[in-house]
């Protein structure tokens, strides 16, 4: 049997694909900025690497529950819960903001665990030295503990960020106009389903390799200083 693939019909819809790429990248970027910050905060709450707990026990337990619940349920359920479930409880959200919130909540939980591993690897002497310089607790955390910790866990964090970017393809299911939604729209117009998903598959591949390259360059350069 002969199979004829027609990529022309898919590529002719390039404005749709471009919009899709735009939304995918915008959602990812926003989720990375807010999600990593959330993860850092959660890691601080749960961290007990310096002999004493940093936050009250109840708060630490709550954050722990959040991390475990998110890490042990599928992203699509989290998204459906936020988009379909929350309106029933009185919070009405657009598809885009629901996608954004779901991605932040998801990345936050994973980032918390990844960053915590880095925080707990801080040598005790570093803290003692900082204390002897009369730095406050917050100063110690931001200036002494976080930069080397981030440097240590950066590769793991980059992988997680890429997983979240790929996960954003699910957001098309609630009609956020990201890349996989564009493919779905294109195949409903010209019935070139296989070709449409091959094309966006290639785009996702390029995006994930590009993102890994960009983050690996960006991290050392701007986030934790030095080579």
């Amino acid at each position: 049997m002969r199979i004829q693939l027609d990529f022309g019909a898919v590529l002719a819809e390039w404005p749709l694909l471009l919009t899709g790429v735009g939304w995918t990248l915008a959602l990812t970027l926003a989720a990375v900025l807010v999600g990593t910050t959330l993860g850092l905060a959660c890691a601080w709450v749960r961290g007990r690497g310096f002999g004493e707990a940093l936050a009250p026990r109840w708060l630490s337990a709550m954050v722990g529950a959040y991390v475990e619940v998110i890490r042990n349920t599928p992203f699509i359920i989290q998204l459906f819960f936020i988009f379909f479930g929350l309106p029933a409880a009185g919070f009405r959200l657009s598809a885009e903001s629901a996608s954004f919130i779901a991605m932040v909540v998801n990345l936050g939980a994973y980032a918390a665990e990844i960053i915590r591993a880095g925080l707990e690897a801080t040598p005790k002497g570093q803290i003692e030295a900082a204390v002897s310089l009369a730095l406050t607790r917050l100063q110690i955390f931001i200036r002494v503990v976080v930069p080397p910790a981030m440097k240590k866990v950066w590769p793991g964090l980059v992988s997680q960020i890429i997983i979240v970017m790929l996960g954003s393809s699910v957001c098309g299911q609630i009609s956020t106009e990201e890349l996989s939604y564009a493919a779905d729209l294109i195949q409903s117009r010209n019935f070139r389903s296989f070709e449409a998903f091959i094309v966006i598959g290639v785009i996702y591949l390029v995006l994930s390799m590009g993102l890994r390259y960009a983050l690996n360059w960006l991290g050392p350069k701007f986030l934790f200083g030095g080579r």
Partner: protein
Amino acid sequence: MVDFTLWDIVRNLVLALRWTVGLSLIAFVGGGLVGLFLLMLRLGKRPWVGRLVAAYVQIFQGIPLLVQLFLAYYGLGLFGINTSPWVAAGAGLTLYASAFLTEIWRGCVAAVPKGQWEASQSLAMNFGEQLRYIILPQALKIAIPPTVGFLVQVIKGTALASVIGFMELTKVGKTIANATFNPFLVFSCVAVMYFLLCYPVSLYAKSLERKVNVPS
């Protein structure tokens, strides 16, 4: 309109949970077998075969599982194979799992000290014997915790099979949510079920990890 009690919802979701578990097992076992085969190719003596496997891994790790499932669904149809959701979801998830497991296991084999390869070579073992008697038994011990951990990813991944019409937990949850107009309750129940399925596996993986990491 039919009224659904909480019991009706939970009962239907538990019934749907069977398909999630079944699909997870198919993907995990299938992915493990394909992954093992790819690992052998990767470790073999031919560098271009190894590069091919590396490219395979890169492709499957670099495109979303959702897109992989759509490709399996439409691709199998294009090749004239009956695209029942079982076949498409099973094939898509198997390929996805195989790529990740190959990469995980490759890391475990790489963690076996290089001297072990050299020592076994000096005993005049051939490649197959080296793997079978020296390398794999050691790598296996390191590999078990991350492999169990990956099972959680597979279970969560099966939720995406709902988009190609597979009636598993997510799809049934969505259907019930549409029928009852109570998405908050239904999706909460669905989330709880996934959690009950995944959390014990996560805990088990964590405890295995602690056992392996004990300095001897």
